[in-house]
């Protein structure tokens, strides 16, 4: 990450240009995948992976410090847990509303299909958050290992 060998410096002009063009679209496409899962292929898992890939590309080009300013390691670690909690919490919420665990129909008692829709949105968001955060945690932990030797 922090190596400043001549090869990396030479690559940088092209990398920066391509990265600047692509990273926003990768992130936008991840959000599309996240919130459009009901209508097309995709869902939380794919969206999370794509979003994380976008951020890792950002980290590869601008460095680990830059991407960790954008998504601090502590925040990412907390988010990994929050995603699972959101999923499990949706299940607990349906139980409190009188349904079974993860029986989303309970959200809108008069209209089961609407309840299913809300429940799916919530759990897919949980999956997306956890997958993004887990991938970033793994990337941070591996990429961060090179730092002590350089320091």
């Amino acid at each position, binding site marked *: *990450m922090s*190596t400043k060998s001549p090869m*990396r410096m030479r690559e940088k002009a092209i990398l920066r240009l391509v990265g600047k063009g692509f990273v926003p679209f990768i992130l936008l496409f991840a959000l599309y*995948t996240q919130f459009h*899962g*009901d*209508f*097309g*292929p*995709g*869902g939380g*898992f*794919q969206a999370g*992976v*794509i979003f*994380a*890939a976008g951020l*890792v*590309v950002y*980290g*590869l080009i601008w460095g680990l410090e830059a991407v960790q300013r954008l998504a601090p390691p502590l925040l990412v*670690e907390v988010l*990994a*847990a929050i*995603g*699972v909690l959101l*999923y*499990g919490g949706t*299940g607990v919420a349906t139980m409190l509303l009188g349904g079974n*665990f*993860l029986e*989303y129909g309970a959200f809108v008692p008069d209209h*089961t*299909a609407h309840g*299913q*829709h809300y*429940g*799916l949105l919530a*759990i*897919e968001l*949980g*999956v997306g958050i*956890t*997958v993004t*955060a*887990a*991938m970033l*945690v*793994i*990337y941070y*932990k*591996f*990429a*961060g*290992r*090179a730092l002590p030797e350089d320091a």
Partner: protein
Amino acid sequence: MPIEAVLFAMLIAMAVAVAKLRDLYACAMLTGIFSLLSACLFTLMDAVDVAYTEAAVGAGISTVLFLGTLSLTDRAERPQKFRALPVLVVVVTGAALMYGTLDMPAYGDPEAPAHQHVGPDYMAQAPVEFEGIPNVVTPILGSWRGYDTFGETTVIFTAAVGVMLLLGRRRKKKKE
């Protein structure tokens, strides 16, 4: 059919190239292309969700993580001597797998277990229970198989926790 043949031929070419090349950056990109070709094949088989996952995971995050790893290590693989035993193991395993596919139902066979078991029920009930949701895969995975998906999410979380525990080097240590 011809397009499948072309894709499979390219798939084999990628696999051979990855095995032969010593340049690890090239290998990382080629494995990404391998995944994209697989995704194209899945799309041709109407398995769009599988293709999507293959493209996102295989061509997306895996390639990017490979590149991230390579920036920490050497660019080229050390040349290795030809060894007979690994080749034998690979050939025997490959032959066993191919032999195994002979028992599988033909592609698109309506009598296949996948089309006979819970599939028809799902297809019949999904429009009733999830009216207005065009993609039936999402509600099946998220609602009817909600427990499984919860388990999978937990597995991913556990993987992150495992990496944190193994490689965890919090800021505290840095200050010492």
